[in-house]
């Protein structure tokens, strides 16, 4: 059993009278791919937005533990620090690339913070200090590494908005990986991909898990992706966790089957009688 990277405890998110997530607890273990699944409107993206700091949860605690033993309480951190300090990166359900910037520029923006420090908060950078040039070169090399992994080397100097949809998905993941995260949150990475692109994506995710010290938490509707690559699945329905375990366990859990396929409606049957 590997160690816990992120533990979510009693997470509750209310929007006015609506409880989107209700007393949710689960753990993301180090080096694993954890999938968060559930029918539409189950509150999966809300959980993501809480973890990455876009929402402040109404109740609950989210603790991220780094390998060096340092703990981060995500619910208390502003969103940009969750990426920069706690090293959580994310992608979006509707792709959010910097479409007017080139693919390479997108990957350099992702390395903003280390470069900002290297440029002496721009003051040294204006005078073209050598140490900054070296750091920038390093950043470009890092970007090239991820371009190769994502199979986008040929498009490095093209505007991101000009890429086909599948490439944009992979670029968004590559951009998130350029921030050197310990936890990568993917919001429906396979949505709208054809089988070929879907296979490319699986391959990319498997390399990330194999070669990097990055654990993955993903939301996905495409069960072929979920069952193939995830080690651990959490099922949500109406903001409540209904199942949690290995793919095989979840697949056969009657509660999951009921949530996805609907139960035989005993109550309505009774009403007819």
């Amino acid at each position: 059993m590997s160690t816990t990277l992120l533990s979510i405890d009693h997470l509750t998110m209310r929007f006015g009278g609506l409880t989107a997530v209700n007393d949710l607890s689960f753990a993301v273990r180090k080096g694993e791919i954890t999938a968060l699944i559930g029918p539409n409107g189950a509150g999966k993206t809300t959980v993501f937005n809480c973890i990455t700091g876009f929402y402040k949860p109404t109740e609950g605690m989210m603790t991220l533990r780094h390998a060096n033993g340092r703990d981060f309480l995500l619910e208390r951190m502003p969103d940009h620090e969750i990426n920069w300090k706690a090293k959580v990166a994310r992608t979006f359900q509707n792709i959010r690339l910097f479409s007017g910037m080139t693919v390479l520029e997108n990957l350099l923006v992702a390395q903003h913070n280390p470069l900002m420090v290297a440029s002496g908060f721009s003051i040294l950078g204006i005078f073209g200090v050598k140490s900054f040039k070296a750091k920038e070169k390093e950043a470009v090399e890092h970007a090239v590494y991820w371009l190769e992994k994502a199979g986008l080397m040929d498009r490095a100097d093209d505007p991101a908005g000009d890429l086909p949809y599948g490439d944009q998905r992979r670029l968004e993941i590559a951009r998130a990986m350029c921030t050197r995260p310990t936890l990568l949150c993917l919001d429906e990475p396979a949505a709208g991909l054809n089988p070929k692109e879907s296979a490319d994506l699986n391959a990319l995710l498997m390399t990330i898990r194999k070669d990097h010290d990055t654990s993955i938490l993903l939301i996905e509707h495409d069960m072929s992706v979920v069952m193939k690559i995830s080690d651990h699945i959490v099922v949500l329905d109406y903001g409540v966790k209904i199942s949690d375990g290995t793919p095989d366990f979840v697949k056969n859990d009657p509660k999951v089957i009921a949530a996805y396929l609907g139960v035989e409606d005993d109550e309505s049957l009774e009403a007819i009688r």
Partner: protein
Amino acid sequence: MAESQNGAPKGAVDLGAAIKDSLIATLVMFGLSVPILALRTDQNMENRLILEPRWHYVWIACALVFVGRLLLTLFVWNKGAKIVTKKAATPSDLANAIRPYLGRIGLILIIAYPMVALSITGPQGSIKWIDNFGIQILIYIMLGWGLNIVVGLAGLLDLGYVAFYAVGAYSYAIIATNVIPATIPSLGFWSFWICLPISGLLAAFWGVLLGFPVLRLRGDYLAIVTLAFGEIIRLILINWIAFSNGYAGISSIPRPSFFGIPFNASDVGFAARFGIEFSPIHRTIFLYYVILALALLTAFVTLKLRRLPVGRAWEALREDEIACRSLGINTVSTKLTAFAIGAMFGGFAGCFFAARQGFISPESFVFLESAQILAIVVLGGMGSLIGVVISSIALVGGIEILRELDFLKQVFGPNFDPAQFRMLIFGSAMVVMMLWKPRGLVSKREPTIFLKERKSISGSFVKEGHG
């Protein structure tokens, strides 16, 4: 054309064919014009019918046809052919050859401009050309470049930019007329050079001050608050009479010195020190180079910053703010630096404006100024430095030149004053421009870094910013 003969024979063939084609057209014109234009029947003093030869009309018509036909085949009609064949051979080889040097040529022209104006129109006549055209346009270029950081790069729509211009101008005016004479009067001749950085810093401070409350606002809401900010500054300047002397403004502001040497007719003045005859044009030319240097500083800093992480963060902010936050970019400090640096250059320009005018009043800092600077940035193409230059020359210089068009009086009658139509022309020009080129004159975005090949990015991918 030697190059095109080696590289792309098609271009050379095109030129030869075009000349032949034009010659044929000229011949047709000649044949037509000889009976029609060349001879005219007229009556002479003795009421006799005579033939009056008018061969010069024929030559003019033939020349027009030749040149026009040649230009049309080379530049206009050739475009269609290029699209069909998808050939890289461009019709304008000359334009392509010049393009890399365009910036340098422009710079040399701008540096040489006051000397050329001086030698053509003399010391009296050239003041108008250097001051009204040169300095005025350069002030707007600098303001445009400053606002370009906020609007063009960071995508924050700022309708109150003139407020920072006012802060800069009043900083200089008040420090130079009140503070320095009261404390260290011996610094008098240096006051412009001391106040220039102070004005910039104060304007940057006000930029940050404006930035804080509008951080959470986007789009229309941001525009309205910045508009209000501009008006607040103007109304304070009007109503706080003890501070700014209200509508009456501040007069007798010290003029800039040549690094401590004043421009006057005295023994220690510029003319006496350098052993030349005193003339007010010296100061005008000096002012021209000061604003040119300030504007170039703005351009230099902008170009540098664009290639630094902060500049990329500005552009990323314009493209997608939420993605920025997910990548660990502190959007608060990024927006504030954009406001501060943009405002700082506005402050520099304001300081210069006060020193050049010698008199300032709140009348100079009305909303119309903000609108004009924004129009320059939008018309030039958001984020483009060269676009701002072109649109400043067109908008500011174009309006000035209307005052010079006296010959229009001969067409429209002596009561016609072209200067009164400038706003009408200005407005219709804007409408036409926005229909023809909705993304501005230079809509392409140049990438800040490239791996293999620098490719301009079409304006259709670049976002205008949402806040």
